């Protein structure tokens, strides 16, 4: 075997061996990819609570009870659902999911 074909580092050699054995994962696969793609309900809860609370604060400040809180809850719900939608696509990087889906 030619000397230049021998991978230099142990991790390269392991990667080559895994590839030859059909166990290879390409370089783009990450630990995150191997984790379950189940959407996390926490995203929804946190978004609704955070925007609802912001609305509540704005209501107290501007004396517009209860409209800004309701608006905040609604925005939180939409943002939370959007996050769930993206999580279910397996796209953690912003906008990646949409790009992949459309192409």
């Amino acid at each position, binding site marked *: 075997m030619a000397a230049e074909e021998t991978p230099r580092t142990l991790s390269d050699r392991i990667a080559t061996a895994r590839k030859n054995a059909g166990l290879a994962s390409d370089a783009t696969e990450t630990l995150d990819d191997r984790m379950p793609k189940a959407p996390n309900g926490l*995203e929804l809860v946190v*978004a609704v609570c955070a925007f609802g609370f912001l609305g509540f604060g704005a209501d107290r400040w501007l004396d517009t009870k209860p409209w800004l809180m309701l608006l905040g809850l609604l925005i939180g719900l939409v943002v939370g659902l959007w*996050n769930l939608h993206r999580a279910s696509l397996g796209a953690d*990087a912003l906008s990646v999911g949409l790009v992949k889906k459309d192409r």
Partner: protein
Amino acid sequence: MSEGKLHIDPISQFAIHPLFEFSLGGYNLAYTNSSLFMTLAVAMIAGFFLLGGKHRELVPSRIQAAGEMAYESIANMVRDNAGPDAMRYFPIIFAIFFLVLFGNVLGMIPGSFTYTSHIIVTLTLALTLFICITLLGFARHGVHFLSRFVPHGVPALILPFIVALEVLSYLVRPLTLAVRLFANMLAGHMMLKVFAYFAVGLMTSGSIGLMALGTLPVLMNVALIGLELFVAVLQAMIFTILTCVYLRDALVIEH
């Protein structure tokens, strides 16, 4: 506990007490039990890696092997989730993983304090990371960093709506990161305390039948402590992995 009545108080374990009063310029900078456990965690982390790196031998001792394994696993986590380019930020991610891990695990010692069960701690960590990562994105890509909020292939009519959604969902990130860790730690410790109260209440009830029944919450707590140790490690990993994923977003704009 009052006679004959079970008084369940699972929340007092999270109370912060000042150990040394200290104020500067009107601000209360008291050294609290939370500060004490953070100091302990930092001292233990530093001690662990200093001892592990003391005799760098080809055939490692147990502590050196443990230190090397810890280093390698976090290095792999950063490389896998944030890319090789992110390795220059490895020290901060490594430090955060161990600060969270030791906070979670130290809290499992009965009578100790879990500083990660306070949202002020987790939110400070998450917000610091979020602000630094966002600044890093701007430093790397300039105004082009904002292009990640504008997905391709979206009809112009709904584009403003989608951009607003993307920006808002980006802003929620530090909150979800902080709440995930804090809520898991808080809920776990409260559950342990509630079952411990059940056990004490039943076993001190005086009736043989109830005292026998009191072994059930004890067994439950044994199982829960196992689960909580797993959650302590898992939550530290999740916090770090998500930090890496957010870092990748700042380093690489995918379109």
